């Protein structure tokens, strides 16, 4: 099969193929997906040691804005301070253990517990205890202030780690800032923020987006939109990616005379005339990229840091342990997969969409967060197709007859993710 040379922009996202590690062929034990014991190990040795996305910076733009976010059994409170800094705290009042905030987001000048009104400032410091003299043992502020969690920002996201000894975020992210800074996620605006309860282990969801072996099977429509054969897979230190050419049908559909409707829709949106490409469907992708460049300034977009391929293709990144990014020139579709508090058979799928803002468009307010159960609403055709098998995978894995994942070369990002995971578990 022909492999396209990826066009990269000097100083932009590197496109070179990374060396292939030898990861062997061992069966990946199913216990990692279904065992409560393994789930506890994951919590103690992985979730509590890695960097995780807390929220978008734009969700807490002003001093006093806060948001609560859950990971495993912990609830965290992310707050914007008077100094403009985002800080994260364990969301628990040190008096009798009430959660300091239990709404999803809000704004307040101080953080006051709703039970006995202990009050903390935006840096987490305990500043007021009603009838303090009645605590004859005293209320030492250092001991009773909110417990802070390391917080840093990158890409317009607030990241936190429960690990006081973790490396700096930049070191943890490795190649990610170099690769993805050209997209300027921090300038994008969130336009959708949805959580869906899925009845599967969080890794089953991560896996579903780390392989495209299933694409011709469950997404037959996509064969007319992207080439899922000429895909470059790169495995890095912890993270991985694949580069998927869009605006070019997959080889399995054969020679097409006319541009398929699904490709044509994107072309028409750019003012292209699909009929002109009759008999030249293979030329659409490059023409689409050129057109995107030509029209950028008029539409208020600056693609100067993006290579040509990035104007059409999906640069699909996985940031260990739980962030999946479908990245296009104008939009980022992001999945954050969180484990259930106690049940390895359940998870939370956070779906958010960020859109590139044209030069003169003011940043819109962030959308309200929605939380639904699987099947309560459509997530669009592709995600509905992706999610339909997940509860059945989880049930199937519990079978006595099933031992574990039998992984192909095309699915090797799954194996790579497990290697990283097991490096954490092993310590």
């Amino acid at each position, binding site marked *: 099969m022909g492999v396209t040379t990826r066009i990269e922009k000097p100083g932009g996202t590197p496109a070179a193929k990374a060396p292939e590690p030898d990861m062997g062929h061992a069966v990946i034990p199913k216990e990692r997906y279904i065992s409560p014991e393994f789930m506890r190990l994951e919590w103690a040795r992985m979730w509590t040691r890695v960097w995780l996305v807390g929220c978008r910076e734009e969700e807490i733009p002003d001093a006093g804005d806060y948001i609560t976010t859950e990971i495993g059994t912990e609830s965290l409170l992310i707050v914007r301070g008077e100094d403009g800094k985002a800080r994260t705290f364990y969301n628990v009042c040190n008096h009798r253990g009430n959660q300091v905030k239990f709404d999803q987001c809000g704004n307040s000048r101080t953080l006051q517990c709703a039970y006995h009104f202990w009050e903390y400032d935006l840096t987490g410091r305990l500043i007021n205890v009603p009838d303090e003299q009645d605590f004859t043992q005293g209320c030492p502020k250092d001991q009773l202030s909110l417990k802070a969690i390391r917080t840093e920002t990158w890409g317009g996201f607030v990241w936190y780690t429960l690990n006081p000894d973790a490396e700096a975020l930049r070191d943890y992210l490795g190649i990610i800032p170099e690769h993805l800074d050209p997209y300027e996620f921090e300038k994008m605006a969130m336009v959708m923020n949805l959580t869906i309860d899925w009845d599967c282990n969080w890794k089953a969801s991560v896996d579903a987006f780390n392989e495209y072996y299933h694409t011709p099977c469950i997404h037959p429509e996509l064969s007319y939109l992207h080439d899922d054969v000429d895909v470059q897979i790169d495995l890095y230190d912890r993270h991985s990616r694949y580069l998927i050419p869009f605006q070019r049908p997959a080889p399995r559909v054969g020679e097409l005379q006319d541009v398929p409707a699904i490709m044509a829709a994107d072309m028409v949106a750019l003012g292209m005339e699909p009929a002109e490409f009759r008999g030249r469907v293979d030329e659409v992708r490059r023409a689409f990229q050129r057109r995107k460049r030509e029209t950028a300034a008029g539409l208020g977009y600056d693609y100067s840091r993006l290579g040509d391929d990035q104007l059409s293709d999906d640069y699909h990144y996985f940031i260990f342990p739980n962030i999946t990014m479908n990245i296009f020139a104008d939009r980022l579709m992001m999945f954050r997969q969180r484990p259930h508090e106690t049940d390895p058979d359940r998870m939370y799928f956070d779906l958010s*969409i960020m859109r590139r803002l044209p030069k003169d468009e003011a940043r819109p307010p962030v959308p309200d967060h929605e939380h639904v159960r699987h099947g309560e609403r459509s997530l669009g055709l592709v995600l509905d197709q992706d999610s339909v098998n997940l509860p059945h995978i989880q049930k199937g894995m519990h079978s006595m007859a099933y031992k574990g994942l039998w992984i192909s070369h095309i699915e090797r990002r799954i194996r790579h993710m497990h290697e990283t995971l097991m490096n954490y578990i092993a310590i």
Partner: protein
Amino acid sequence: MTDQTADIPFRFVSKTTDLEPGKSRCYPLEGRNVLVIHMPHGGFKAIENLCSHEKKSMEGARIRAGKIVCPHHGANFDLETGKAMSAPAVLPITVYPVKVEGEDVLVQLIEPKKKPGNPFAIPGVGGYF
């Protein structure tokens, strides 16, 4: 919606005696391919003969518990509503209203269910995604 479909006439598509119970056959009718199904326990159903998965014909499909099982990759569709009941399909198929008059099976060729234009489009979000 109901008002609009009420105007669509019922058309003759087949004889009840054409098909054994449990069998289905495709009839071209006014530019559509209509799959007429004689239900195993009696009664007739008709659908657009196009599986929503890979747009293949379901002629000869098995009928089980009120559902049609696509012979290609096994997707199930409810024959009352057209809803996809199992992977690999998620989109519905079109079910045509049926009337039996004497030995005639009549169908109402309502508009087929629209497929979403952009497979990535998420209801509730403007634009591409």
